[in-house]
């Protein structure tokens, strides 16, 4: 860890408590949220901050996530700095508002604590909730640890509100595994966070200047709609640069440098696994063990899923001979999980194209231990040695046959 002048405090906290603390330090104007496991402790702790008067936030109690996101959109259009949080079915209930928030270019930040979608009903971790919302025009950040969940929350706000972005951001961490585990991490001073995120002045708003009225959400006929979608596409593609600028600025403040993705022992690797979220930690542990046995394996941990860093991924993965992409969500009826299909597509026109296999794992909180990572690596080694052809069909790891 790089040395910085910034004073930081080492804490023992759950990931959710860290996220609530980040929200407190940001001190948003409006929070509208509805509790749902495993997100509940974020909004519970934040409600305590509101009740204790340590934040100035207008906390809107709503009767559903549909209303939560509607209130966030209204407040954001009015010109407020707005945050919320949800999981699973709660995110699903926000569905029709998600695309409106991005289309109206409202910089709402939402912590999404990843939990499996019903059914059957389940409260544990997988990424099917946020992956289901991948085409909604939001920026998607994934965290491996409580530290990253805390850091991403702060960066998410700055990215969202940046004048060249102005898009909503979802900041993900894994339900229970990260949200409810007590972890050791560093937190910034309130004053440093306040300074980093700065004051928010929206470019357009309903309330800031009554002499310059603005209409949000007008009807768009076919002659107008398509151009708006092109604008959204350009905006989210262009946000990649700002994501990295904010990430680099945050590194100067905190000493913690992140990227669009992290390459772990990938330089001289023959085989690589791609993973996002907490399983990256287990993969790191397993890779160290397998490296000690002479297996040349590395990992690419994706942090920014939207905007999808296709060119950068193609370059990073072009160096290896075989890649196993691990998705903690399935896209039933498609080629495989969403990360797999997109990475495969990203490499299609590359000159250096590794063999690629797709894996689904850990649905509904099924534990993912080093044994499953080893299975993937061993599969890939067989492909590299020519003992097996790359599998066309996706493999569901750890399912009982």
């Amino acid at each position, binding site marked *: 860890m790089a040395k910085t002048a910034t004073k930081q405090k080492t804490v023992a906290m759950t990931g959710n408590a860290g996220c609530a603390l980040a929200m407190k330090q940001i001190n948003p104007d409006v929070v509208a949220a509805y509790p749902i496991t495993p997100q509940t402790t974020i909004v519970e702790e934040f409600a305590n901050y509101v009740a204790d008067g340590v934040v100035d936030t207008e906390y809107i109690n709503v009767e559903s996530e549909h209303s939560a996101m509607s209130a966030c959109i209204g407040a954001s259009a009015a010109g407020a700095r707005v945050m919320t949080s949800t999981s699973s079915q709660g995110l699903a209930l926000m569905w029709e508002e998600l695309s409106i928030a991005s289309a109206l270019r409202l910089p709402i930040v939402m912590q999404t604590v990843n939990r499996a979608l019903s059914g059957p009903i389940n409260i544990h971790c997988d990424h099917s909730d946020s992956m289901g919302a991948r085409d909604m025009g939001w920026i998607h950040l994934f965290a491996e640890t409580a530290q990253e969940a805390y850091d991403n929350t702060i960066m998410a706000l700055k990215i969202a509100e940046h004048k060249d972005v102005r898009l909503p951001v979802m900041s993900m961490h894994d339900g229970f595994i990260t949200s409810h585990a*007590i972890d050791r991490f560093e937190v910034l001073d309130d004053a440093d966070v306040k300074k980093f995120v700065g004051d928010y002045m929206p470019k357009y708003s309903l309330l800031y200047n009554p002499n310059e009225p603005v209409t949000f959400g007008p009807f768009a006929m076919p002659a107008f709609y398509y151009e708006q979608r092109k604008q959204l596409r350009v905006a989210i593609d262009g946000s990649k640069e700002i994501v990295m600028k904010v990430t680099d600025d945050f590194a100067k403040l905190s000493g913690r440098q992140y990227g669009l993705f992290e390459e772990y022992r990938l330089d001289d690797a023959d085989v690589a696994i791609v993973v996002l979220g907490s399983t990256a930690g*287990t993969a790191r542990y397993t890779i160290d063990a397998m490296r000690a046995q002479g297996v040349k394996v590395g990992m690419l941990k994706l942090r920014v899923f939207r905007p999808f860093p296709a060119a950068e991924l193609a370059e990073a993965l072009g160096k290896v001979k075989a890649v196993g992409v691990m998705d903690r969500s399935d896209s039933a009826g498609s080629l495989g999980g969403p990360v797999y299909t997109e990475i495969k597509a990203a490499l299609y026109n590359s000159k250096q194209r590794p063999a690629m296999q797709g894996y689904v794992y850990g649905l509904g909180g099924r534990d993912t231990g080093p044994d499953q990572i080893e299975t993937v690596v061993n599969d890939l080694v067989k492909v590299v040695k020519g003992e097996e052809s790359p599998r066309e069909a996706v493999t569901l790891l750890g399912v009982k046959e």
Partner: protein
Amino acid sequence: MAEVKLTEIRWHARGGQGAVTAAKLLAETALSQGQYFQAFPEYGPERMGAPIQAFTRISSEPIHIRSSIANPEIVVVLDPTLLKAVDVTSGMHEDGVLIVNTDDEPKAIRKAMGLKGRTIFTVNATRIAQETIGRPIPNTPMMGALVKATGMMPLGNLTDYVRKSFGKKFSEEIIEGNVRAVERAYAEVKAE
């Protein structure tokens, strides 16, 4: 697997006995002496009285692994009635340590469970809690037994941390009761 200096603990208790609080307290104590840790309960449909598990990892180095603990070195049982209800030694290391809150001697537990190998520690943490804190909550005395059984930290570090941590929320009487509970369990725990 590579050699990683990592201690893995599994806690067995019933909902309401404070296993999650104990795991948290242990994590915070570890932090106070500069260690790395993870503490995570196994979540399900929680009910007061239902058997639950919680997990703690402690290491001098950052901990990356995030999967659940399948092969704990240390198993702590907060309620003796769980010995019949749950397989508390499942996946446990052959040279692991089992610490049980019970009035029985370690030998009796070994015989009742048909256990070979492993070191068994017993202490009547419920009685100690009743006599020191005035309530039958076994979690803090079990921390004292855990520290004695494993030598994972000096007793003083734990009692210092109990004073510091409880000081924010509880009366002097309760804090000192908890400290005495830790110290008594540390002294009274028996091994075989």
